[in-house]
C-alpha cells in the first residue's frame, strides 16, 4: 500500500497538464441548388420542326432554383443552339428558345422577368435578389432546312438546357 501511494504521488508529480481540444466541425453546402422539376421533350408537329410546346406534343422543361441567400447569385439559363445527339443532318437547323419565370415562392420575385438580361442570344440571366425558390421554363424550337422546310431524318434528337447558378 505504501509503495502504491508513493508510485501514485510520483506519477501525479510528473504528469503534464492535460488539455483536451474540443473541435467544432461544420460543412457548408452551396446556398444555391438546381433541380430538374420537369424533364423536357421535343414533339414533332411537322416534318421539319421539333418543339417543346405542349400543343405540339412536346413538354417544356421546368427548372427549379433553390437559394437561401438574397443578392448572392445569378440564375442563368441557356436553351440549346445545337443538338448534342442527332442523326446526320443534310441541312441547317435554326434554334429558338424562350426562358421565363413560371412560379415563385414569394411575390417579391414578381419583377424577375422584367429585370432579366440576355448576355447571349440563347441565354437569359436573372439576379436572384430575394431568397427562396423560383421555377423557370425553357421552351426550345428547332427548325430544319429554313425556307426549304427539309424534313428531319428519323432518329433520336437530344438538346441540352444549361442552368447555372453564378455567385455575384
Amino acid at each position, binding site marked *: 500500500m505504501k509503495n502504491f501511494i508513493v508510485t501514485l504521488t510520483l506519477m501525479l508529480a510528473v504528469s503534464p497538464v492535460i488539455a483536451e481540444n474540443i473541435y467544432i466541425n461544420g*460543412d*457548408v*453546402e*452551396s*446556398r*444555391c*441548388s*438546381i*433541380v*430538374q422539376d420537369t*424533364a*423536357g*421533350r*421535343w414533339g*414533332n408537329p411537322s416534318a421539319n420542326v*421539333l418543339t*417543346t410546346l405542349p400543343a405540339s406534343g412536346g*413538354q417544356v*422543361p421546368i*427548372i427549379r432554383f433553390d437559394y437561401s*441567400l438574397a443578392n*448572392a*447569385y445569378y440564375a442563368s439559363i441557356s*436553351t*440549346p443552339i445545337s443538338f*448534342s*445527339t442527332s442523326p446526320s443532318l443534310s441541312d441547317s437547323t435554326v434554334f429558338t428558345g424562350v426562358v421565363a419565370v413560371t412560379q415563385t415562392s414569394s411575390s417579391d420575385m414578381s419583377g424577375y422577368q422584367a429585370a432579366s438580361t440576355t448576355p447571349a442570344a440563347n441565354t437569359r440571366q436573372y439576379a436572384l435578389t430575394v431568397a427562396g425558390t423560383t421555377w423557370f421554363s*425553357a421552351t*426550345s424550337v428547332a427548325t430544319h432546312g429554313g425556307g426549304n422546310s427539309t424534313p428531319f431524318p428519323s432518329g*433520336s*434528337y*437530344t*438538346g*441540352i*438546357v*444549361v*442552368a*447555372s*447558378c*453564378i*455567385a*455575384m
Partner: protein
Amino acid sequence: MSPAYPKLGLTHIAGVKKVAMQIFNSREDVEFYEIGVFDVNWKPINFVSLYKIIKIDYLSTVKFDVYLTDADALKAEYLCSRSKLRSDKNNKAMLATRICSRFK
C-alpha cells in the same frame, strides 16, 4: 459546390496557390461533374486538380483541391462545376446544371 466565395491560399510550392472545394450531388440522374476555372470573360484558365471530372454518388460529398499559378490566380474569377450527362434515346431537352463560385 461550396464555398460560394473561395479564397486562394498559399501552398508549400513557391508561385502556386491552392483552394479547397467540395461538391454535393443532389441530382439522382447525374454521377459525374466537371470542374473548370474561368476569367471574368468566361475564358477557361489553366489549373491543376487530381481529377477534372469527378464521380460523385447521389447525395454524397467529394472534397477536392484546385491549384493555380500566381499569374493565373490573378485572372481567375469563377470556379464552376458542371454536371456531365449521358446521352439516351429519347427526343428530349436534357438539363445540364452548373454551379459557379466566385473568387474573392
